[in-house]
Every structure is written in C-alpha cells, then in structure tokens.
C-alpha cells in the first residue's frame, strides 16, 4: 500500500491554497475552451502553456491538467444545448443529449453528462494510481530497443485502429516524423533539412503545429459551414440533480462497460473519440429499450461521456510512465513537462515523486472541483455560446496568434501557425487524421534517438528488435496492427474474386 501513502503526500502538495486556486482557474478556462468553437483541449492547453513558464512545475501541470478536465466537461454543454459538438469526442453525446434538451429535459441531460464524465474519470484515476507505479517499475528495465518498440507499437496501432484510410494515416504520421527531423540533429549536431534557412534551425515546434492544425483549421471549417447558433437555455437546480443521480444508479452496468472501453482506448492511443462511439454502440446493444436511443435516452448520454472522460484521463498513464502520450492533449502536456525540464518516463516516478503524486492527487481534486463548477455555472456558458461567430472568430484568431508567438517570442512561428492552419483545414476535409501527425512530431526525436542507439548496440543489424521475448512480442504486435488494414483489403479482394460479381 505504498501507493496510498504516496497519494496522501500528493494531496498535501495539491491541497495548498494557491494550487486550489490554479485548479479553479484551470477548470474555468478549460470549460471556456471546450465551449468555444476552434479552441479544444489540445490547442487550448498549447496556447496557455506559455502562461505557466513562470510558475513552478507542480502548480503549472495542475493548472494545465485542470484545463484539460474543463475542456472535457465543456464539450458536453454545446452538444446537449446546441447540438454542436464542441469536441470530436462529444459527437456521440448529441445523439441523445440534444433530443433530451428539445423535450425540456436539458437539466437532466447535463447532469447525466457531467456525472458520467466524473465517474469515468474517477475510475480512470484510480486505475492510474495503482497501475502507473507498477508500469513505471516494469519500464525501468527497458533499453532503447524496448522503448523504440513501444513507440513503434503506438504508431502501428494508429494505422490498425484508425477510421481514416490507412494510407492517409501513414502519410500524416510520416509527415510528422519528417517535420520533427528538421533542424539540428540531437546526436551529431548537424543541420538537417534547413536548406540554409536560419529560422528553421530550431525546427518545427509541435505547439505551433497544434495551434495551427486544430485552432486555425477549425475556424476555417466552422466558417465554411456558416454556423448559426440556435440553442436551448438551461438552469440546473439541486432537486433535478439528485433525481438524475438516483436514475443513473440503475445504469451501473453501463458505467462499468463504458469505463472499461474508455480506459482501454485511452491507454492504447485509440483516443476519446472512438471510445465514445464504441461505448454508445455497446450501450444500445445491451439496453433494455434500444428503440429509445436517439430519441432522448439518458443512457445514451451517460455511455459516451463516461468513456470519453475515462479515455481522456487514462491517456495520461502511458504519458507519465513511458513518455508516450495517448492523445494529442496528452502530447501537449508532455511537451510542457519537457519544457520544465522533467523527462516523462519511468525515471519520473523515482526522481520526481512529489511532482507525480501531486499531479495524480490533483486529478482527483480537479474532477471534483470540475463537477461542482460545471453544475453551478451552466447558464453562463450557454450565454457565451449566444455571442455571434462574427465576434468570436477574430478573437479566437488573435488568441491563437498570441499562443503561437509566446512559445518562442518568434514572429516566424505566427506565420507557420497560419500555414499549419491551412493544412489542418485541407487535411480535415480530405480525411487525413491529425492526431498521428502531432504525436509523430512530439515523439519523432525520441523515437529516432532510441532507434539509433539500438542500431549502435547491434552494429546496424535490425535483429536487435527480435532479440528478447519482450521486444519481439512488442514488435510482432506492432506489425500485426500495421498490416491489419492490408489484410482486410486482401480478404475483400478475395471475396470479390470468388463471387465474381463484386462492386
């Protein structure tokens, strides 16, 4: 029970008055980000990251992770009241949330969404509390070959599990690696792919990419759709909350199922979005009245929200223990850790105990604070959503520009943000996934260093990746995932040939 002792220490770190204040500020900013179009968890955290440079790392990460929780909560508000998913993972919440709001049950839907998010996150944090130290201890024995194999697995599972066309997933990922390689080579100090340009010496910063791809790209997409917000208003009173909680108790099986789906998808880089869809589908299949789904079933709100929040939270488990983020937002948090000189990975649990347990404790507290904040402040957020897009859009552009500039105080970064924004728009329209691009950009240098160190120890022979049971099973699993889509295409092709009349 060493974990409980560590956790109690963590609470004493997180429970100080300034840290609780940062938590509250973080949650409020996070909900704001989640509610506004064009600002989401990943780019919201990226924009606000420079604000924390002057803070101590523990307070900073507490505030940033609370922004993340807030964004997860905020996505539900727009989905239910406006039928506009503020975040991709709340798309499934609109299926039943918006019909409930139309029937005048907005308060129940919101309470159900917030409570389910809370439950999902709480179980995921408990999982992190007990699993993270074990995983970190296990990972301490990893050499460069094992680390590369884990990173390889991360990227292959993108190809194997992504909804997007596998070739485009690969293209996005390789582009990320290529961009990561630009600038000074960390091992030999040689300049690569700069073509004589001095601004490229530092390479491409993934924070700029995140702000451009997700922020500016999203604004361009929203402008194309010409959104007009028409929403329901909502006020939550305490009686409805208690009533809804009572009703939700009957759905404990849905909660458990959705949390399991969410945690699994969060630890493997499936992410919150597929997790929410999967758990919505499962809830419908196992429901007593499946015909009610889509018409305002409270279970249809609870299931995707639980899974999305569980996935969002458990994405931090591989980030902390292995240095591999499970989602773009976790990638940005990882970038933050690197900026403060904290190297995520197994050593973090040995060298920075106070920091790690402070963060884990703040996950418990942050979610409780978050639940209370969103339950009490819903009417304000609904009012913010009524501000027309003609006002919101230029303000968000200005905020994105500030975020891009402050990372390195560089004007070139602001220009790059715009370029990434245009590509973000094109990629979204053409169904190139953005998450593998961002992850490859973050992990590129690390993966390359691990690969080269493995090659060094084996004198350039790839056989090092088949030299032990652990590394070979990781590599084997990766290859299966990598070729999974090709196998599916091959089977379809066989069928067409046998049937003769395929289309």
């Amino acid at each position, binding site marked *: 029970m060493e974990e409980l002792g560590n956790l109690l220490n963590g609470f004493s770190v997180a429970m100080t008055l300034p840290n609780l204040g940062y938590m509250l500020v973080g949650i409020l900013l996070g909900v704001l980000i989640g509610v506004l179009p064009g600002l989401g968890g990943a780019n919201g955290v990226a924009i606000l990251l*420079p*604000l924390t*440079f*002057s803070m101590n790392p523990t307070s900073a990460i507490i505030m940033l992770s609370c922004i993340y929780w807030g964004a997860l909560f905020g996505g539900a508000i727009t989905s239910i009241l406006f039928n506009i998913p503020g975040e991709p993972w709340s798309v499934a919440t609109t299926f039943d949330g918006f019909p409930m709001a139309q029937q005048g049950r907005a308060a129940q839907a919101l309470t159900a969404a917030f409570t389910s998010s809370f439950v999902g996150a709480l179980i995921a944090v408990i999982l992190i509390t007990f699993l993270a130290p074990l995983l970190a201890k296990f990972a301490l024995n990893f050499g460069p070959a094992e680390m590369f194999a884990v990173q390889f697995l991360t990227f292959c599972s993108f190809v194997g599990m992504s909804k997007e066309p596998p*070739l*485009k997933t*690969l*293209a996005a990922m*390789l*582009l990320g*690696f*290529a961009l990561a*390689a630009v600038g000074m*080579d960390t*091992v*030999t100090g*040689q300049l*690569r*792919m700069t*073509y004589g340009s001095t601004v490229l010496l530092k390479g491409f910063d993934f924070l700029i990419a995140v702000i451009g791809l997700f922020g*500016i790209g999203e*604004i*361009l997409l929203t*402008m*194309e*759709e*010409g959104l007009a917000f028409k929403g329901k208003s909502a006020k939550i009173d305490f009686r409805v909350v208690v009533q809804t909680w009572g009703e939700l108790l009957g759905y404990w099986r849905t909660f458990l199922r959705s949390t399991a789906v969410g945690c699994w998808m969060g630890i493997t880089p499936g992410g919150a979005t597929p997790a929410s869809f999967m758990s919505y589908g499962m809830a419908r299949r196992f429901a007593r009245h499946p015909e009610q789904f889509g018409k305002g079933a409270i279970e249809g709100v609870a299931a995707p929200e639980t899974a999305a929040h569980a996935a969002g939270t458990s994405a931090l488990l591989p980030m902390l223990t292995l240095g591999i983020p499970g989602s773009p937002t976790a990638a940005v948090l990882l970038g933050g850790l690197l900026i403060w000189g904290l190297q995520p990975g197994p050593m973090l649990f040995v060298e920075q105990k106070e920091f790690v347990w402070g963060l884990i404790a703040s996950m418990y507290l942050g979610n409780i604070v978050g639940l209370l904040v969103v339950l009490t402040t819903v009417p304000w957020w609904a009012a913010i959503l009524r501000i*027309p*897009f*003609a*006002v919101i*859009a*230029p*303000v968000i*552009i*200005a*905020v994105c*520009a*500030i975020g891009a*500039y*402050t990372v390195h*105080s560089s*004007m070139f970064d*602001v*220009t790059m*943000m*715009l370029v990434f*924004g*245009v590509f973000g728009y*094109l*990629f979204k*329209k*053409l169904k*190139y996934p953005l998450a593998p691009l961002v992850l490859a950009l973050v992990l590129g240098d690390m993966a*390359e260093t691990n*690969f*080269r160190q493995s*090659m*060094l120890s084996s004198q*350039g022979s790839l056989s090092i990746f088949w030299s032990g049971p652990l590394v070979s099973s990781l590599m084997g699993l990766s290859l299966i995932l990598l070729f999974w889509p090709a196998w599916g295409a091959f089977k379809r092709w066989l069928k067409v040939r046998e049937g003769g009349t395929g289309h």
Partner: protein
Amino acid sequence: MSDDTDASRPPIPTRWPELIVACVLLVGSILVITDSLRVGRDWASDGPKAGYFPFFIGIGLAVVSLGIAFQQLRTWRSDQRVFSERHEIAGVIAILWPMVVYVAAMKWLGLYVTSIVLITYFMRRHGKYGWGLSAGVSVGVMAVLYAVFERWFLVPLPKGPVEAMLGL
C-alpha cells in the same frame, strides 16, 4: 461574388485538392531524401550518420504519397465526391485573406493594433455591427488580454510604434 451566381455553379470536386496535397507531400519527401543523402544516410565511425533515420522516413512518405496520388488518378472519372460548394469556399476565403494580412502586418504594427483592426473589421463586415460597438469590443478584448498576459503572467507580446507612442 453574389450568392445566386455561386449557387448555380457546380461544387468543387475532391479530386484536385486530393491530388495537390499528395503532390505537396511528395515534394516534401523529396526534400527530406535529398538532404538525408547530403548529410549521409550510412554509417560513420561513431554510429549512424544524421541522415540515417530521416532517409527511411522520406522513402516511406514518398511511397505513401505516390500511392494516394495513384489511387486518385485511377478513379479520376468515377470519383464523385464533393470537396465544397462554391459559397462555402467563398466563406473560407473571406476569413483567410484578412488572416494573411493580419499576420503580415503584425511584424511592423505589433499584435495589439492589428488585433483591434481584425476584430473591428469582422464585426463590421460579417456581424453588421455599428462602429461604436465594434471598436468597444475589440479594444476591450485586447485590454483584457494585455492585463492577463503582460501584467498577471508577465509574458510580453509583440508591440509596434503605436504602443511605443503610448509608452506601454
């Protein structure tokens, strides 16, 4: 530019943007490969040279982007997917060019003046608000951002001649 002529014209098909993006990726991969060859993709006395890893990445990207381009060319005639309607693209361009001007002007004028102009322009042009309200909102927003970033969190933002005149 008027809406009724836009609506009568056919939507933009996906094939061209698809092919162009694949070609941009291909050009990128060629840049990566040539520079990897320059710094050396083989083995030096102290281990792999700097081009060792990026070379494989470049080759992979070239193969994948050629694959995407090839798929698109093969289904060139049968591909009926729509990229966007004309008026939707007009909406995107209506926000894109002010953004380009905004970023370009920021080098000389700093962030505050350009942002105020951008927000005012948008509220006037797309929201049909009056001068007073537009100016009030834009100056108010930037004042709040100034307070949060420069006063509270001590992060300096780019300033131009106007701020220098005001002594900020």
